[in-house]
């Protein structure tokens, strides 16, 4: 993810559905338009929920990076 600056990241491992999704929503709300934020989730359900929410909320899912141990880092750009 060279060239992309993540302004804020929350490690939501150990938090269960809908926790990581709530973290992403809070992050996006507190961010400025154009900011890139990330949430790390180890929760299986949230791995589908997070991209679905980002699409529904009309932001941009920049990347889903697998992290050792089965978690995923969801990187999202705030578009509006």
């Amino acid at each position, binding site marked *: 993810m060279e060239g992309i600056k993540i302004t804020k990241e929350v490690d939501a491992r*150990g938090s*269960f*559905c*809908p*926790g990581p*999704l*709530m973290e992403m*929503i*809070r992050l996006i*709300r507190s961010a400025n338009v154009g900011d890139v934020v990330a949430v790390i989730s180890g929760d299986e359900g949230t791995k589908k*929920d997070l991209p*679905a*929410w980002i699409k*529904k*909320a009309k932001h941009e899912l920049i990347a889903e990076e697998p992290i050792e141990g089965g978690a995923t880092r969801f990187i999202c750009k705030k578009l509006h």
Partner: protein
Amino acid sequence: MEEKISIILFSGTVDKLLAAVTIASGAAAMQKKVQIFVTFYGLLAFRKDDWKTNRRLSKDFEDFATEALKAMEAKKVPNWLDTLKSAMEIGDVTVHACGLTMDLLAIKLEDLESVVSDIVGVGTFIENASGGQILFL
């Protein structure tokens, strides 16, 4: 039309409360308007501080729910009230107390957790639910 989900929360057991607030969270996240109508045992669970000692479980699922509750406590799953408060922060979620239950059991709005905004009759609930989905838990 605005998408909405109305939940009738009749149960005051932790398993049903958690189910209700989790569904409410998901719906709120997906930008649906959510109203939760708390009635009878559901309303009793919203009395101030009741959540701190509530270990009630649905009789139908007693065996499994006991295990599930233990697992959730071990994994530090947030309590149902905190989950509900999170849902209210991120979306349009309101909680309304059933007027009939309040009258029958002589409960006042100030006896309930502050997440409950008002007391309504079933007619108001049905009117507000009109055109959306209704879940009974």
